């Protein structure tokens, strides 16, 4: 087993563990923190089912962003939808035998990769060219886009410039999954791609990428408009009430 295979195997394990634990911890803290007051942005749904529908529109269609800025919406949809297609397409490396729909998604995946890179380029241009957005951008905001562009770019390069031996790569991935390590093809573009993906997984729980889980915990979006009908009381507010006595 080459040093390279071992280092990448360890890197990918470490990245996955940091990603999973970090994300779980964040989600746990979000879930644990109470929302003491009813603050849905109105008009808001008056039923739980309505809230689910609102959240589906928000997460699936970026409804609020659409209201706000059409250009940002277009680039954001291109990037996120492209990323989703690519992730689905990449399932082929993890599954044996392949599920039916993973096979179906394969030809679209490549376009997903292109859309993703184009969308990211648009977002980057907007960040650079719109004075308001440039004003609020930190170095990390640019670096995040560059990292994602690097992932998309190196992925497309593996596909189009220096096609790697995907059969042995799949063997490597399955080897990681079943703790039966197989050699990793020594393709520089593939190695770059994997290193950048690992980096993304590692920074995810410590960065603004937390917007992905956070949106589900946003009280302005996930609360039902039923303040008059149901009394909403956070545990700490209930303790305060008991301590404060009755009127």
């Amino acid at each position, binding site marked *: 087993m080459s040093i390279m295979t071992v280092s990448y195997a360890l890197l990918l394990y470490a990245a996955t563990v940091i990603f999973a634990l970090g994300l779980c911890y964040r989600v746990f803290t979000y879930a644990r*923190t109470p*929302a003491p007051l009813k603050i849905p942005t109105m008009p808001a749904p008056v039923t739980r089912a309505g809230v689910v529908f609102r959240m589906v529109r928000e997460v699936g269609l970026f409804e*609020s962003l659409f209201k*706000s800025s059409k250009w940002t919406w277009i680039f954001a949809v291109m990037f996120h939808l492209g990323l989703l297609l690519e992730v689905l397409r990449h399932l082929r490396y993890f599954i044996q035998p392949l599920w039916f729909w993973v096979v179906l998604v394969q030809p679209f995946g490549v376009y997903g990769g292109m859309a993703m890179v184009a969308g990211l380029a648009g977002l980057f241009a907007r960040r650079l060219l719109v004075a308001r957005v440039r004003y*609020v951008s930190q170095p990390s905001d640019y670096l995040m886009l560059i990292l994602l562009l690097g992932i998309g770019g190196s992925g497309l390069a593996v596909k189009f410039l220096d096609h790697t031996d995907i059969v042995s790569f799949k063997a490597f991935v399955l080897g990681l999954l079943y703790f039966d390590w197989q050699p990793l093809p020594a393709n520089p573009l593939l190695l770059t791609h994997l290193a950048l993906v690992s980096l993304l997984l590692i920074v995810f729980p410590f960065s603004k990428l937390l917007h992905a889980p956070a949106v589900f915990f946003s009280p302005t979006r996930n609360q039902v408009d039923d*303040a008059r009908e149901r*009394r909403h009381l956070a545990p700490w*507010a209930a303790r305060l009430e008991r301590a404060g006595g009755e009127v």
Partner: protein
Amino acid sequence: MAKIDFEVPVIGEYLETPALQPAAMAKSAPFKASPQHQQALGFPSELLENWEEVAIAKLGELLNKYESLRVYLDACVKCGSCSDKCHYFLGTGDPKNMPVARQDLLRSVYRRHFTLGGKLFPKLVGARDLDKSVLDEWYSYFHQCSQCRRCSVFCPYGIDTAEISMAAREIMDEIGVGQKYCNEIIGKVHTIGNNLGLNAAALANTLEGLEEDVKDDTGFDIRFPLDVEGADVLLITPSADFFAEPHIDGLIGYGKVFHQAGVSWTMSTYASEAANFAMFIGNYEQMRKVALRIRKAAIDLKVKRIVVGECGHAWRVAYSFWNTLAGPFDFLDPNYPVPQHIVEFTYDLIQRNAIKLDKEANDHMRLTFHDSCNVARATRMGDRPGGQLALPRAVIKASCNHYFDMPADTIGEKTFCCGGGGGLLTDDLMELRVKGALPRMQALRQVQKEHGVTHMAAICAICKSQFSKVLPYYDFPMDTIVSVHQLVSNAIQLGAKT
């Protein structure tokens, strides 16, 4: 109109996004609370010696108490969708009035002290230590947010800058840096029962005078009852309704509606205020203390229902928070919503043909309606989502013949703040108030040109006061602003059998 030492914005053909003018409003800051105002609320009288430490500890405490704060400080991706949505940014061009930049004033400190990235690489992620210059920025720019939540409509994660500015103000109170306007007023409510410091005798006197005036005007005995035990309805209304213009015309309207409906009602000297400025300083305990006065008044007066007058943030506190802060209201009649808005009350009477309105009485006006931010984005009326937008319009349209909405992106959930909400309705912030009103003034000008609109109805005491003051700066007559129930008052047929 006072002397102007700033440039009043020019209303253009369309609302334009201004070019960035860094630090344009850096000098804007409200007067600080005096030691007495601070002490009355249990806050330190002046800046603590170890204020940095206390502030960070308070931020940590709030992060564990408010899911909104914790999630919103993490979730922002700096996409910029909110950046051109704030009326204060649109009116001033100061980039720190972009909602995301305003949040970043607190987020930068959060990152430095509570996140790994900010501890290891502060420059990279825009993290910074809390020092005096940061505190000064907080005091200035967190008092340039009217907590109107327009940005939260457009944010893909629903980040609500109001939650951030409330937390920042709470931290500042905790270290001894309070705002005079809010804290003085909250103190008055605790001791006297209303924002104005109007005592029981003065209030009774005012209402008696009002009864006489209305009698002279209409020939009818419209009562404005105070502390009547056993009345059906307790009316909780902003104290500005007792004498400010055009608020008082709204109060006369409520009185006429109750009179025609034949419902016994009362106001309370103990809880003579619907406003709850404790919301503006983000303080749950203070907000609860103010709300509990209303619960006590309702119990003491043995009423069956509570109806709330025209006031935006008060309706937010009443609709969204009362049940939490001062509930359960199981001692009231369960057949009516608790609380009920006066517009819901009047709307219901109109639906049942229980009052008669003569639209022609308002034919001297061509009207539009300013959706108050808190009513539109933080409450509901009726039983369907959006009722808070539909019901006031229905009541206005039932009272007049000429009604025209302002452009769609300036009303409803996208409504612009009047520029004076969130505890900023104070003369020491006049420049901010005038500039922040620009988007609304622009929209008003548009319907004035297109439809000959002469008057704008509002449903909030703060909006009414703010517009009375600010309209003249933009060459609109001061009395362009009217109360919704002023229109009802003009149109209602007293004594008419239905």
